[in-house]
């Protein structure tokens, strides 16, 4: 299955692009995805413990199972206002 991954702010700069498509085995979790992304983009590793993840625009935890076509967003610590 395939998911869309979005990167923002410091993570977008670390990865060098705002968005990518990622192929995953069925039943993969957010944690599995983060492992793959960190392998592919080593620059993410120093951020990974601070990343919050949203799936289809809702915050989720690492154990969440992903579905074909999900929009997964990697969010560094927020700081609006």
């Amino acid at each position, binding site marked *: 299955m395939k998911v869309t991954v979005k990167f923002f702010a410091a993570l977008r700069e670390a990865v060098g692009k705002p968005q990518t498509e990622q192929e995953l085995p069925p039943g993969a979790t957010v944690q599995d995805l983060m492992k793959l992304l960190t392998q592919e983009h080593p620059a993410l590793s120093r951020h990974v413990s601070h990343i919050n993840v949203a799936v289809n*625009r809702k*915050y989720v935890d690492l154990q969440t199972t992903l579905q074909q076509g999900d929009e997964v967003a990697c969010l560094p*610590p927020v700081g609006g206002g």
Partner: protein
Amino acid sequence: MAANDGTGGERAKLFEVTNAELSVDEVVGRLADPAVGAVSAFVGVVRGVTDGREVSYLEYEAYPEMAEQTLRQIGDEIRERWKTIREVAIVHRLGRLEIGERSVVIALSAAHRQETFGAVRYAIDRLKEIVPIWKKEVWAEGGAQWRSEE
């Protein structure tokens, strides 16, 4: 601007991220309603110094769809906690902002003033906690850094 009649017609958006300059009057105007007797507002302004360092400008970035959704969630949370709050509007600006420009305007309406003050504080604290918006400080001496509340 029409009152909240639930038809969703021409009414201005109450929760929005935008690249346009913010006007406090315009955001307060989004709450226009004959039942309202008080509006409290918070205005965030770009500060020229942070931790003793001179800031040249700020660059705001958002996950826009989720940002508007979480702003709306804050509005829902406020009206759940403070039953007297009638309506909430939160508009956050994105892109490059110069020192002194407005970054966010929050306005809350009620029949009477009493509970509006605590609710405004809740709104800005919660915004900084859950809304996917980021700011990068670009320093006058060169260099830049993404800032969070951590």
